């Protein structure tokens, strides 16, 4: 069992917490289905890690709400915020359950992925190695969508997650990039990130 993080109050605006919980839970759904349908263990592990992060954020949000409510009006307004956060937390729990199908070696029948391969874009994670031509480049200048039909939808940098990174975001060594696209483009992209392919083709 993973060690549970001790929750200590940190002053973070409620809005920021709620937005992060929402964004993370939505990213987790995409990651989890891709992990389960294409039996991708690494993606599944990412989902489980994100779930712990969402849990921590949910605690912090709860604290902020408790501090902020001073009267009946506050309480009425903040109940909505608390309900939405708890629903987003449930979404992240459900995503973790989907990821657990993979990490517990149950797996989904392979014929399902055969069908989904045809209709659905898939997600893939790739670690940026030293020497990869992506290092130091801005996402915008790579023009991945036009070149290979790939979008970078998130970056994991150390313990942080950058969701929907901006065009000006610079790719660094050891970044974990989560990308979405057609199978061929995704494969090419992984090779680029890992430094096994050294040229960006037009």
């Amino acid at each position, binding site marked *: 069992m993973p060690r549970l993080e001790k929750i200590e109050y940190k002053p973070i605006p409620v809005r920021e917490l709620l937005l992060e919980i929402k964004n993370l839970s939505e990213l987790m759904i995409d990651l989890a289905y891709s992990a389960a349908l294409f039996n991708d263990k690494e993606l599944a592990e990412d989902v489980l890690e994100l779930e712990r992060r969402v849990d921590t954020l949910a605690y912090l949000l709860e604290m902020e709400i408790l501090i902020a409510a001073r009267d009946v009006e506050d309480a009425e307004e903040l109940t909505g915020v608390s309900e939405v956060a708890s629903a987003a937390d449930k979404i992240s729990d459900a995503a973790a359950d989907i990821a657990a199908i993979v990490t517990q070696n149950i797996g989904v*029948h392979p014929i399902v992925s055969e069908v989904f391969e045809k209709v659905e874009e898939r997600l893939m994670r790739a670690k940026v190695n030293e020497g990869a031509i992506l290092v130091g480049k801005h996402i915008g200048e790579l023009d991945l969508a036009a070149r290979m039909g790939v979008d970078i939808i998130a970056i994991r940098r150390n313990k942080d997650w950058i969701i929907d990174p901006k065009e000006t975001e610079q790719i660094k060594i050891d970044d974990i990039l989560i990308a979405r696209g057609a199978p061929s483009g995704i494969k090419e992209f992984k090779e680029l990130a890992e430094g096994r392919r050294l040229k960006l083709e037009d």
Partner: protein
Amino acid sequence: MPQRHQKQFEEIVERFAELKDTSELMIDLAYSSLLLNRKELAEEVQKLEEYVDKLHTDFELLVLSSGFKKEEAKGFLGLIRLGVATERIADAAAEIAEVVLRGIEPHPILKLTIEEAEETVTYARVAENSPIINKTLREARIPEETGMWVLAIRRGDKCIRPKPDSKIEIGDILIASGYAAGEEDLKKLASP
């Protein structure tokens, strides 16, 4: 794999794909109903929730009656669990919509981003003479032409999650959000 088996499989996967699409549509609509404080979108989510329950039961029955072999049991257990989690996601979306339906005074925080606060929701029916009939959403270029973003497509009693290759049909009702200025343009495009 015997033909009968193959067909059953396709049906199971199809049903699951619909379950997944619908639950994701519900999340999109639920957050939109919250951001824009629109009850009719929240009601759409509640309706879809009932539909998902039915889909989920159909899906489970199909999986259980598929006559899988012993060595396939794990893969089918995985499918069942995938269905359960998907249904839970739909439930969570319905809870978000409930906040709107209960008329809880929306906290400014729930608008989440300032820009979206000015947006409106509009419904546009696609008439027989519309230039976008039989076009995919990608081809129809609705956001570029009107500034409106299609949240969902209502077709008969179904509600479809818009994807770039979704085809627009006569009689579709496009549920879209955007600045009020685009409303007129969208209606003109849908029924000139």
